[in-house]
């Protein structure tokens, strides 16, 4: 097992990461001012993932950590993906009857 004391990054590296993070922040704010349709979401989330990776790898030192820590960190996000992904399989494939037939409108009227 690698001992954490042995790997101490220098201050310049931390500053570099910090500058990168700030640059990403600026770029994401700027990107949001353009109307790119659905690509806005993609851009914002991609940048967020990049920032997260920088924080996890360098600030949280996962880069120096054991495989086990990698697995734990990855598992958390994998499970989040499962939750979102499988829930959306339902929502994106729903075919509930559209509330527009005449009779259904009368039904709605009857309820309210």
């Amino acid at each position, binding site marked *: 097992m690698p001992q*954490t004391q042995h790997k101490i990054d220098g201050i310049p590296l931390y500053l570099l990461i910090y500058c990168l993070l700030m640059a990403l922040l600026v770029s994401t*704010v700027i990107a*949001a001012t353009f109307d790119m349709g659905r690509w806005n979401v993609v851009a*914002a989330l991609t940048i*967020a993932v990049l920032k*997260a990776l920088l924080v996890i790898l360098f600030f949280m030192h996962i880069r120096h950590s054991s495989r086990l820590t990698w697995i*734990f960190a990855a598992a958390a996000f994998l*499970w*989040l993906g499962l939750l979102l992904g499988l829930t959306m399989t339902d929502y994106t494939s729903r075919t509930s009857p559209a509330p527009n037939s005449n009779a259904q409108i009368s039904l709605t009227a009857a309820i309210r």
Partner: protein
Amino acid sequence: MSELVAEQFDDLEQQTEAGTLGMWTFLATEVLFFGGMICGYTVYRHLYFPAWHNASLIVDNFRFLGVSSGAWNTAVLLTSSLTVALGVRAVKLGQNRLLGRLLAATLILGIAFLLIKAAEYTHEYHEGVMPCYGVFHPDAEISANLHRAAIGSQISETKLLRQFQLFWVFYFFMTGVHAVHMLVGVGLFTFLLIETRRGRYTPQKHAPVEIMGLYWHFVDLVWIFLFPLLYLVR
């Protein structure tokens, strides 16, 4: 055995590793804790796009120097993450004075975040979007926008208003839970600061700083995702 090591452990290394692994496990829990909210957020954004689009147009109304407070807060938190990372480095090198200063800086940044957030909440309260019973009265401009949106889409205005309100439920809930985590973080770091002043931490016994540091970074990480989800995505 030295008093540094609790009786159930064989040596310091085992203890440090156990502590770190414990924190990572806890963070995995936290990811799923916020994950439940993010799942709800995703589903409703999918279902109620028109209303949520409208809401996200006004969420960054509160600005300094033309930049939304959400972005400022991101900057504040990223900076605090840097001070924490440097603090962990300092404790490993035995630079206790530096550690104290960095922890203090972190605390100030954390409190700054909370203050900015509070100012933003106040602003939103006055806009009437706080989705509490009796408090939710969107102001005239917002109502006019919603009215226009209702005509554009085929949804009735009352329905649209409720879906619009739902955005704010999620906005306040997600940022609120995050703020609670920040508060806990501020508490933990105050503790760390006091202990540092007492000279409790050495290069050997640096684990508490490192472990609490992980927590702080995680809270930052959550914000890194909340910021685009709530403020940027339209």
